[in-house]
């Protein structure tokens, strides 16, 4: 590696990790024992908040999403407050703070007030294990993937608290739907992650990224099925549109959010975006190579690559939200149990076989490219074959109405699906 690319010097601020690491080393020498931990925590929190969370949540999550959805829906989106409407999120926040916080008389007040607060904590915790750059991860714990899955199951309970505490039937519907759905979707999600872990042989996120860097391949090519399962499962757990049955505004008004107003609602809204960005960051880290980009990370700050990828991944969520209708709850559960779970198991079998072959035969590392090819084909075949086996027959669906030119009585559908007249 040429010396001028990454020098590991603190002044090489293509990588903020060097800078902060140097700073902490200096402080550790100067200050008494233990204080540096507190400073590091504060520094990490403030830096990640200012550099990532705030712009993500406010300007990508609120402004960007509204603007993009607006363009998808052929309207302008926010364009009144500030230049290009950029100050819209701030105006929203001010409006929300001013609003009256309504509490239904028969609500369970303690739970109702507690739910938004508890909802925030796991979101902040999730970002602790995400590697933003080579040495820019706050807590590089060895079981980061399990940690992420575990922590992301806590907001479900918060949602349940929110839905139950209002004593509102719509909210209760939302709460029940969330609980039922999450317990179904966690299973394929974990099984899909297992395939990834089998390949990388690590539960850490930073080491997963490094594995992808070393093998020069992204896990999305190696594990297309797991990626699909992760994307669908994540969008289900996040209540994004194809699966937003928990707040389904056309059916159960707003589900568990029906009775919330003001900043209590605002916390839920903001943290929903936060969770979506966290899921995007996790997906990028595990499947899309994290902060690496096939060598480009030597030239560009890795955290910039990472943030760019995260926003692109988040765009997928926005895109599906702007395009797709919503599934019904029983269809959603059927999809999880009858489609995603067998597919995940199949993926696990394929991965285990390949891994076994790799280890037993002591094959060269470049065999992953062959595996990638096999897995992509297998994924396509599995998805198509299993959906056919479950009765998916697109050719039987009528595309257009029948046309008759004379008024009269009932026109039976004959065998070819055409009108007899």
């Amino acid at each position, binding site marked *: 590696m040429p010396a001028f690319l990454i020098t590991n010097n603190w002044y090489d601020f293509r990588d903020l990790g060097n800078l902060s690491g140097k700073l902490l080393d200096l402080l550790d020498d100067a200050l008494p024992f233990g204080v540096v931990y507190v400073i590091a925590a504060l520094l990490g929190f403030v830096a990640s908040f200012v550099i990532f969370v705030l712009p993500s949540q406010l300007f990508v999550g609120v402004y960007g999403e509204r603007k993009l959805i607006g363009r998808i829906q052929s309207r302008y989106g926010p364009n009144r407050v500030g230049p290009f409407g950029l100050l819209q999120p701030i105006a929203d926040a001010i409006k929300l703070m001013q609003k009256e916080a309504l509490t239904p008389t028969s609500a369970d007040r303690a739970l109702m007030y507690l739910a938004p607060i508890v909802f925030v904590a796991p979101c902040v915790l999730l970002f602790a294990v995400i590697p933003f750059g080579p040495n820019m991860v706050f807590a590089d714990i060895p079981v980061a993937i399990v940690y992420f899955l575990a922590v992301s199951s806590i907001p479900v309970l918060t949602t349940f608290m929110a839905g139950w505490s209002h004593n509102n*039937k719509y909210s209760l*519907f939302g709460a029940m739907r969330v609980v*039922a759905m999450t317990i179904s979707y966690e299973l394929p999600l974990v099984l899909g992650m297992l395939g990834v872990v089998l390949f990388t042989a690590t539960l850490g996120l930073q080491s997963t990224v490094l594995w992808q860097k070393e093998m020069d391949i992204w896990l999305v090519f190696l594990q297309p099925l797991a990626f699909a399962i992760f994307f669908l499962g994540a969008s289900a757990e996040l209540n994004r549109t*194809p699966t937003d049955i928990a707040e389904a505004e056309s059916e159960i*008004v707003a589900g568990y959010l029906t009775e919330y107003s003001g900043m209590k609602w605002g916390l839920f809204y903001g943290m929903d975006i936060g969770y979506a960005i966290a899921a995007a960051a996790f997906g990028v880290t595990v499947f899309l190579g994290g902060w690496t980009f096939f060598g480009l990370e030597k030239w560009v700050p890795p955290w910039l690559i990472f943030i760019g990828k995260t926003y692109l991944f988040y765009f997928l969520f926005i895109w599906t939200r702007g395009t797709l209708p919503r599934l019904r709850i029983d269809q959603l559960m059927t999809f999880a149990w009858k489609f995603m779970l067998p597919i995940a198991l199949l993926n696990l079998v394929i991965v285990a076989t390949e891994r076994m072959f790799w280890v037993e035969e002591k094959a060269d590392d470049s065999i992953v490219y062959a595996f990638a090819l096999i897995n992509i084909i297998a994924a396509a075949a599995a998805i198509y074959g299993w959906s056919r086996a479950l009765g998916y027959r697109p050719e039987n669906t009528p595309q257009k109405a029948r046309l008759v030119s004379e008024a009269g009585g009932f026109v039976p559908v004959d065998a070819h699906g055409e009108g007899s007249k």
Partner: protein
Amino acid sequence: MSGIIKSEPFTLNIGPQHPSTHGVFRIKVKVDGERIVDAEMVMGYLHRAMEKLAEERTYTQNIPFTDRTDYLASMSNNLGYVLAVEKLAGIGVPDRGNAIRVIMAELQRIASHCMAVGAFTNDTGAWQTPVMWCFRERERVLDLFEMTSGARLTCNYMRIGGVAFDLPREFEPATRKLLADLPGFIDEIEGLLVGNEIFLARTRGVGMLSAETATNFSLSGPMLRGSGIAWDIRKADPYCGYEKYDFQIPIGYQGDAFDRFIVRLEEMRQSVKIVQQALDALPGGPHSTHVPLALRPPAGEAYARVEGPRGELGYYVVSDEGPSPYRFHIRPPSFINLSALKEMTVGGTVADAIVVLGSIDIVVGEIDR
């Protein structure tokens, strides 16, 4: 959840203030888990006693009332009423007036179906994208109405014996431009939704009505045609010279929500065809015959109906030679189409009920009158 987990049946009020009831309308459903075991409709929140009010106003004064029954299809409502009065009084309409009426009624059908399709897809959960697309095209139709009648929603354009104003000069090029764009737009909506597996899963097999049931429930319009009955007043009992135009009746396959949806899409295509033909063969001459303002038709009764966007839109007018109708009755299609709601929702889930309600395409102003 539904069916798997049994819980206590409890009553859920969908409405009067609910995002998907399309107005102030309420369904009291009794649900067991998510499955509906009973449904009861509560309406009348928008009742304005139009039929009573009309008995105190002259025949011409009643035209604005008809705008406000089905406020999404005011032209069709105007047309039905003036046809009934013309039938009662024996008034003829010049050819140009008839052609303009056809153009307006078909444009109104396009606008109303845009709304129906958009709101329906919104009910299935497509987060406002199709509805915004549909509104975009509907706006252009409403622009044409504004150009012609001065109003966008409640046009008050038809008159007894013709139409209120002749078409402005810029109407024809603007309409032709719109007609050139509309098929592409309909294809776009079709591409977005008809091949969409989620949309199919939500609408296929939901709210099934057999042809016998649909007939017995007195349904009309896309509801009836979705069940496979080829019945269209424009073909069966042509008025305003519909027999001169070449168009076809779209019908569905099994009478579910999806069939109603594709029938509406196809009807928009047929309407484009009709407007095209009417514009091409637009006759000259007067647009209206002279009718005295205080019209006193001979004693008798008349029932005239038109194929409104929601179904058979009938007006039953009884005259006693007075200046105002003795009895004025509207046959509101969405009110009568609603009677099959319970039949379609019971046994489905709450989400299905919303889809079914969207597929009926109700307008509360017309239900409550």
